[in-house]
């Protein structure tokens, strides 16, 4: 794959490598507290709820619902100029955590979106090192 991708790429930190490496294999790994079974996003070295290092990684399906969305018409960076209008979204995984993403495979018009609508994951390889996790209507 020729690497001419100009948009911002993730800069993984040690505690989030597992998340980004998973996406390359079309797998979604998120963290869960082994004491309370609460999920959290983004990856951290501790459980945000009770201040302990009892985190485990769990593979989830990516089945989710639309929590909120917005349609970007004015590119925030030059590298997004060819993408507008595109759809930003906060997506609620069925396990609970909310993650930032885009909704793809649908015309960017408010009439096509309903908050609460069911979503499925789409794995988008942007270069040889990174896969982004986007979503489409289920």
């Amino acid at each position: 794959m020729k690497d001419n991708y100009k948009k911002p790429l993730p800069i993984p930190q040690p505690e989030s490598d597992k998340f980004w490496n998973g996406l390359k294999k079309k797998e979604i790994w998120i963290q869960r507290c082994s004491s309370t079974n609460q999920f959290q996003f983004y990856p951290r070295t501790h459980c945000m709820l009770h201040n302990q290092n009892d985190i485990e990684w769990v593979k989830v399906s990516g089945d989710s619902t639309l929590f909120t969305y917005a349609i970007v018409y004015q590119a925030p960076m030059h590298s997004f100029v060819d993408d507008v209008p595109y759809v930003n979204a906060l997506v609620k995984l069925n396990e609970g955590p909310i993650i930032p993403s885009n909704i793809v495979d649908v015309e960017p018009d408010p009439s096509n979106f309903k908050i609460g609508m069911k979503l499925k994951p789409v794995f988008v390889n942007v270069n040889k090192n990174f896969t982004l996790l986007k979503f489409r209507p289920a």
Partner: protein
Amino acid sequence: MPNFNKLKNLSGKMSIIGVSESDQIGKVPEKSPLALHAEAAVNALDDAGLNLSDVDGLFTAGWSTLDVAEYIGIQPRYTDSTSVGGSSFVIHIAHAIAAISAGYCDVALITHGQSGRSDRVPQEKHLGIPMIQFEYPYGIIGPPSSYSLACSRYMYQYGEDRTRNAMAEIAVSTRKWANLNPKAYFYDKGMTHDDYHNSKWVSWPFHLLDCCLVTDAGAAIIITTNERAKNARKKGVNILGVGEGHDHSMISQMPDLTKAFGTKTGPQAIEMSGISINDIDLAMIYDSFTYTVLVSLENIGFCKPGEGPDFLLEKSIIPGGNFPLNTNGGGLSYTHPGMYGIFTIVEAVRQLRNEAENRQIENCNLALAHGTGGLLSSTATVVLGS
């Protein structure tokens, strides 16, 4: 709610004795951001009847106090560069009264200078932060895309049409106030409801006219004890209550998209002041977007969650109306260099001192200023009394 009894001892003990903008605001490509800091500082000191050598505490955001103090030419014995977005300068008021009360300094200077429109060197974020890792790759970048995600959720919860009408009313009324302020970027330009609804989309649900300006501007504030304020050039404006805090950085981590931290800082500032929210004569609410005003009014407690649109229709926020709001023309139509919070204080002080000329409101004795910073991340509320 936490116990504010200790905080109440600080209520009314300090005063703002000087405020000013830089000489010019708006399009100022011929001046650096540091020059805007310095101009505003000198002007505010002149307003207070003090000299640079009187300043022993320096508060600023977006810059190191090292660089700002060196450029202005002061040697502070206390500094604070808390930088949590546009609310920072409102937060600095809370920090200044604490520092003065503890004896760390006697005369606090808060300065701001930013060339959002003309800067030769754009400010960069630290590349290692989670926001850049998790949101930037998707194009969730900067205030319009983040605030629009929150507004979209608000519309879903409380109704799109009534929210839209309220946002239009905020845009048009704020412009009417700007038309009374010669320093306002849009002093000479009117706005109708049709103009609002016909303006292009930036990030749906935001039209262009939902969004603040991007300008060059500086401003400064001088704070000291009431004792020392007696010798100032003009009567001081009393600092009655303060509140500050934040609950997230990037928008996807906001605990409740329709409730910013103003739900904490508003009630704290009012409680500390010992006043009722109904006593407020002027509300200066940071308007990065029309939506920011709507949600802030609810958060502070002027009305209940989701009732902002009804509140705005019942009240009248145009000049001459019964709920004076953003009388300088706001970030939407007066000026917004990137971090606007300090200008809410400058205008509140002018109204309380009866210095607001054409746009002076009647019987202004109590003003509330409210800053929002980051991506609805941080807020600060200050209550001021004449």
